[in-house]
């Protein structure tokens, strides 16, 4: 049974439904990439897994989020709080705001161990120092005593990862963890995260807009468009043989080495806003292969030759 099983999740905020019918699984030791552009609903999906929707005035309208056999949708806030930080950890986009600026780094990591593992101060500190070293940060003692403002962005994000790992979680949800960082630092952070997952047998849900990161780090991929799943498959299949026109076009938007000049076109139009989703398939106004049924009927996620895609076109026609 998968560690995390998201089935038919629809999220409402007020009267709008920015996310509908999202389903995917995540196993231990696996890295799942949740990829989409703005308005795709990827951050909201992450929040639903953490049970944090009420904090932004949202709620799970339908569907289920099952973590290790437990239904998170119906769990009490107390139950969720016990899981958060201990078994499901969150790494968010901006390391600048994830850390309390007036508390020393060490204290912030120690706090996780004392809270969730019940360790005493000395044991917590030893564990923190060990984690800092594992994240390849030099001079752990000094860092333990330092304040967040004394660290660079990349260092801060590593500390945030250390905090996420401190309670030995089973699942890490990382929401655009490297978007705010420099390229060389990003590469290192991604590598660290991949290594950690492999070494510890964790599950990692990596939310990103960057297909390069997806190709580099992920085992499986869920592609979101305008609040719905467009396609889900293994990473090799997604890139080699995309089953949804959006996936195919999205990959083509990324400049590749040796690509002929003038060949980068982009996808015409723009992502529809939640207020004016078109009828039928939400991608059809921008799809070069849309047929009549695409304008009328919302496609559901169905098995294709490989993986699952929500598209009316038969596999042979998606070039």
């Amino acid at each position, binding site marked *: 049974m998968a560690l995390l099983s998201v089935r038919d999740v629809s999220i409402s905020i007020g009267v709008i439904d920015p996310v509908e019918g999202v389903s995917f699984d995540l196993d231990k030791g696996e890295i799942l990439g949740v990829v989409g*552009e*703005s308005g795709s609903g990827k951050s909201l999906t992450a929040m639903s897994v953490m049970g944090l929707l009420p904090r932004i005035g949202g709620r799970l309208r339908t569907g289920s989020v099952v973590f290790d056999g437990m239904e998170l949708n119906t769990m009490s806030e107390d139950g969720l709080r016990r899981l958060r930080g201990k078994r499901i950890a969150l790494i968010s986009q901006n390391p600048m705001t994830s850390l309390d600026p007036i508390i020393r780094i060490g204290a912030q990591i120690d706090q996780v161990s004392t809270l969730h593992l019940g360790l005493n101060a000395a044991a917590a500190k030893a564990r923190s120092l060990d984690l800092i070293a594992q994240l*390849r940060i030099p001079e752990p003692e000094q860092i333990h005593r330092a304040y967040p403002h004394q660290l*660079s962005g*990349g*260092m801060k994000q590593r500390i945030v990862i250390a905090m996420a790992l401190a309670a030995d979680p089973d699942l890490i949800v990382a929401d655009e963890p490297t978007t705010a960082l*420099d*390229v*060389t*630092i*990003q*590469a*290192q952070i*991604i*590598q660290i995260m991949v290594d950690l997952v492999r070494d510890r047998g964790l599950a990692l849900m990596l939310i990103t*807009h*960057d*297909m*390069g*990161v*997806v*190709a*580099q780090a*992920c085992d499986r991929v869920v592609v979101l468009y305008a609040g719905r799943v467009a396609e889900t498959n293994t*990473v*090799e299949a997604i*890139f080699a043989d995309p089953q949804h026109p959006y996936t195919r*076009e*999205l*990959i*083509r*938007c*990324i*400049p*590749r*080495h*040796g*690509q002929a*000049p*003038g060949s*980068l*076109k*982009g*996808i*015409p139009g*723009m*992502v529809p806003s939640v207020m004016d989703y078109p009828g039928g398939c939400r991608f059809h106004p921008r799809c070069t292969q849309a047929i009549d049924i695409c304008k009328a009927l919302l496609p559901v996620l169905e098995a294709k030759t490989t993986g699952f895609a929500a598209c009316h076109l038969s596999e042979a026609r998606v070039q």
Partner: protein
Amino acid sequence: MTTSPPTDALVKIDHLTRAFTSGGGFLTPKRTMRAVDDVSLDIPRGKVTGVVGESGCGKSTLARLVLRLIDATSGKVSFDGADLAEQSPATMRHLRRRMQMVFQDPYSAIDPRYTIRRALLEPFQVQGLRQSVAEADAAVEELISMVGLSPRMVASFPHQLSGGQKQRVGIARALALRPALLVLDEPTASLDVSIQAQIIDLLEKLKVDLGLTYLFISHDLSLVRYFCDRVVVMYLGRVMEILPSADVAPRHHYAHALLASNFEPDPTRRKVITMLGGEIPSPFATIPGCAFAARCPAATDLCRTTRPELMDIGGGHQIACHHPIE
């Protein structure tokens, strides 16, 4: 040192330095940092010159120095033979018609109180070019369709447009006075990938149609290698390497690391990331030798004490390194 092939350079940058000081008050010591540190390079006419680097490399400052939006501390910038520092305010204003900038943030690049039409006409107004209503209408229509937007949009306000549309307006505005040089400071950084590709496609077409020269600033190496004819790699205000074309393999250790950090959208070509030691140092630290020595895997004592000069190693490929990769 071999002579580089003669280029028709629209902009020549000679030993350009821009220093910033902070502190100097009663209790804080005065500190100087060089955002741009002795940079020399040419921007050839009709081509796309890319400048790539991470935070603190000085690429944005360089862009502003080229347009004289800020003044240099030392060194020279010549536009079409004219030394920018020697221009009077009046001649500078006139010169600005020929060099324009597209900014990174489309959300704040247009005054929120201006309609698109008013924003597009402002260049003419500022330059004192009087137009009849008919001329103004024609100019607006031409500019808006040049960037692929519908003429109905001109009555809208910026907040009614999407990020991609706003950026197109920014480009249209920059082209209003028919400049020869367009400096693009991370023009697609805040846009979605699919929109980014649209904008790049537009920029390519405009370059050909209007015979423009581009200075393209970005942190995205794969984008730079696709779009640019030449690539300048900067680190901490200094030029590390100049690649004469996008497919030349970098031989500077930093440029190499930058390339290695650039993930391909292809799971069969995953990179093996070697950890670069240390972090990007504070720009206020004065570094006697090579700026990258502290983190370079091949650094020697020479690297730490003597700053390497930018040398031509054949075919317009320039590098500032004591021990380039073979």
